[in-house]
């Protein structure tokens, strides 16, 4: 029971499940947007605004799921705004994204002030670990329902990109705008919708941040998770299912630092806390140079 290796592993499992959810949603939203050929760097702002709106609506209505929907709605609005601005001539999506990031966070802080104190109803976790008499494992397996929503969504998106008309149209728009235009597809409209839908997903990711256990809203809630998730998309090479893997991996790596401290290894605490970033960087350098990585980049992205 006191096996330190086991403790660390359980903590990493718990971390993977807990921490990964917002990354999943933002990364899936960004995958959708980037597959259509546009980058939305503003999802950090969307994430924070989503967290605020979810918390506020949950507090005001007493229903956490309404909060989730409202967060999605707020994300859609921000995404649509990004999509609309980028439709204007000579607008750079990266610059707009950075502006939207500040805009979303600013908006959230402005309207979120009164909601820092009160306690809103949060999303009840599903105790999947009830069978175990290991309290650490049982706690690790308290899974938020949004986690499953994210996984189902990723599988659905992966399937839809290959097997539906909309999926093919999004890939076509992202890879060759000229082809899409030649087929009479409105590139701007597709990208607008994909950015709005991506915003919706990122907003839901924000709802998880504020409504999952312990359920609080404050200004330091996200601390750059939205930005990391955008990077995870590149890491996952624009594949929804790989994006989930990357999010899980990132969550697990994030749990290394605290859990090592819990078992008494305090040396290099800050180093281990940086583990997710260092590991991501290393894997990125190894995988980004490969030939298949170059092939997976949607041809229309501005960041080639």
């Amino acid at each position, binding site marked *: 029971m006191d096996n330190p290796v086991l403790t660390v592993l359980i903590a990493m499992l718990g971390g993977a499940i807990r921490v990964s959810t917002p990354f999943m949603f933002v990364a899936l939203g960004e995958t959708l947007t980037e597959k259509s050929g546009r980058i939305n760097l503003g999802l950090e702002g969307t994430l924070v605004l989503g967290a605020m709106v979810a918390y506020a609506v949950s507090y005001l209505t007493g229903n956490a799921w309404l909060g989730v929907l409202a967060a999605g709605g707020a994300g859609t609005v921000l995404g649509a705004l990004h999509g609309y601005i980028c439709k204007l001539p000579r607008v750079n999506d990266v610059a707009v994204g950075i502006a939207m990031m500040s805009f979303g966070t600013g908006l959230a802080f402005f309207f979120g002030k009164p909601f820092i104190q009160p306690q809103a109803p949060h999303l009840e976790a599903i105790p999947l670990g009830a069978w175990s008499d290991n309290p650490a494992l049982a706690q690790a397996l308290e899974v938020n329902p949004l986690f499953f929503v994210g996984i189902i969504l990723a599988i659905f998106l992966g399937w839809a990109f290959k*097997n*539906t*008309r909309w999926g*093919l149209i999004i*890939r*076509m728009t992202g890879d060759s705008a*000229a082809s899409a235009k*030649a*087929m*009479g597809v409105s590139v701007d409209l597709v990208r607008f919708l994909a950015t709005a839908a991506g915003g919706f997903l990122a907003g839901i990711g924000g709802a998880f941040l504020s409504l999952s256990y312990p359920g609080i809203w404050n200004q330091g809630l996200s601390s750059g998770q939205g930005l990391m998730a955008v990077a995870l998309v590149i890491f996952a090479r624009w594949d929804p299912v790989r994006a989930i893997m990357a999010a899980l991996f990132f969550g697990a790596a994030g749990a290394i630092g605290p859990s090592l401290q819990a078992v008494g290894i305090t040396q290099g605490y800050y180093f281990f806390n940086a583990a997710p970033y260092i590991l991501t960087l290393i894997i990125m350098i190894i995988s980004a140079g490969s030939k298949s990585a170059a092939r997976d980049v949607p041809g229309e992205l501005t960041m080639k």
Partner: protein
Amino acid sequence: MIEGKRAPSLEAVGMTKVFGPLVALDHVPLKVEAGSFHALLGENGAGKSTLVKCIMGFYSADDGAVLLNGEEVSIKSPRDARALGIGMVYQHFTLVPSLTAAENLVISRADAPAVIDWAKERKALEAFMEQMPFRVPLNAQVSSLSAGEKQKLEILKLLYLDQRFMILDEPTSVLTPGEADEMLGLLGQMAKKGDITVLMISHKFREVKAFCDHFTVLRRGKYTGSGDAKSATIGDMSAMMIGDTAVRERAQRVTQPAKPDVLELAGIFAEDNEGLPVVKALNLKVKAGEIVGIAGVSGNGQSALVEVLSGQRPMADGAIFIKGKEFSPTRKGFDQYKVFGLPEEPLKNAAVPKMSVAENIAFRSFDKPPVAKLGWWMSPGPMREKARELIAKYRVKTQGPDAPIETLSGGNVQRAILARELSGDVDVLIVANPCFGLDFASVAEIRSQIMDQRNRGAAVLLVSEDLDEILELADRVAVMSGGTITYVSPIEDTDRNTIGQHMAGH
């Protein structure tokens, strides 16, 4: 062939399109009969593309009408054109590279189902392919197909969509002569049977003579003539295309005694951006006073080779010798061995678009006297003076030496670069597709300049996708296929067919 619809006829009347001060199309008529194979001829900038884009609904014409089977139709967008059965194969392919051939075909359909039943679609596609004169692997990702296969897939796509009026924009520029002849022959047969009507933009007289029934010629946005492609002579057609523009007399080839090798490429290897080998064990020698033409279908490593020689791409292995000494493509090396170059698309590859003509012309000499003192202090006076002199000598049409070079027309950019590269003493000249996209007068001018350099004793390596250019200029022809030289022959001992077979890799 698919039963059902027949080939339509199409007529455009008084098509006019104005872009700001430029009249791109001036009341142009075009009449394409049902089941005919019609060529649309004209120089670059003559308005061929504009006309076709107006028919396709990309542009809305300022005046004029399109009649399909004798009835006026309104085409406001490519979607309308598609609904009427008018389809186009563009020079730049419109297939989506990351999708498979099957995905490309299915998504191109207006009624593509919301959820695609791949088992059913695949069966239908295979049945469709059975009836086609040529096939393409359905499961292959488009990015992995060869240019010829992509071209075929584009045409299959039009047939799949039942578009019986087909517009082809210079369809053979990426094909080997063999592939081109096969493709045009098959389309010609389908047209003859009355299944399709073809309108082909071209500037290759040989193809027009061999495969087309009729032709229409445009010059500077105006209709200059039309006729029967079988009975009209190439002279007639080119007169309609060029009009009364003075074309410089071609420089004559001066016969010279055999001279020593100057440029030697020994076992050159190079990799593409993804690390795959593109140039493999390439060996070639070029003598003084000789033009060696490298023919080949685009994408067989020619551009990588030129990039290696001009220092834009690292050499993975091998060596370059000039007059027996090892040469490395650096600024110092170019200077020391008098190596000069005319790359393709000079505005992109050999000029800084926003810098002035004078500055661009000074790229070779700005760090030497008289422009620079002590190797670093530049004085614009001598630079401008030199530029003025070269602008006059090479007849570059510009507002002045201080105009940004991007304001010049394609032919004049190429002349300015020519002035920079050829005004000094040239030992080795590396030329890549120098006449791509230029008008007749510029083409003649540039080719004579290259010939002049040869006659003066330079070793010239000419890489060109235009076989006619090589047949005209080269003393020896080398064929590049799959990243290496597969065939070398003196030009008088070979012919188009032999070269074409080697280009196709046989």
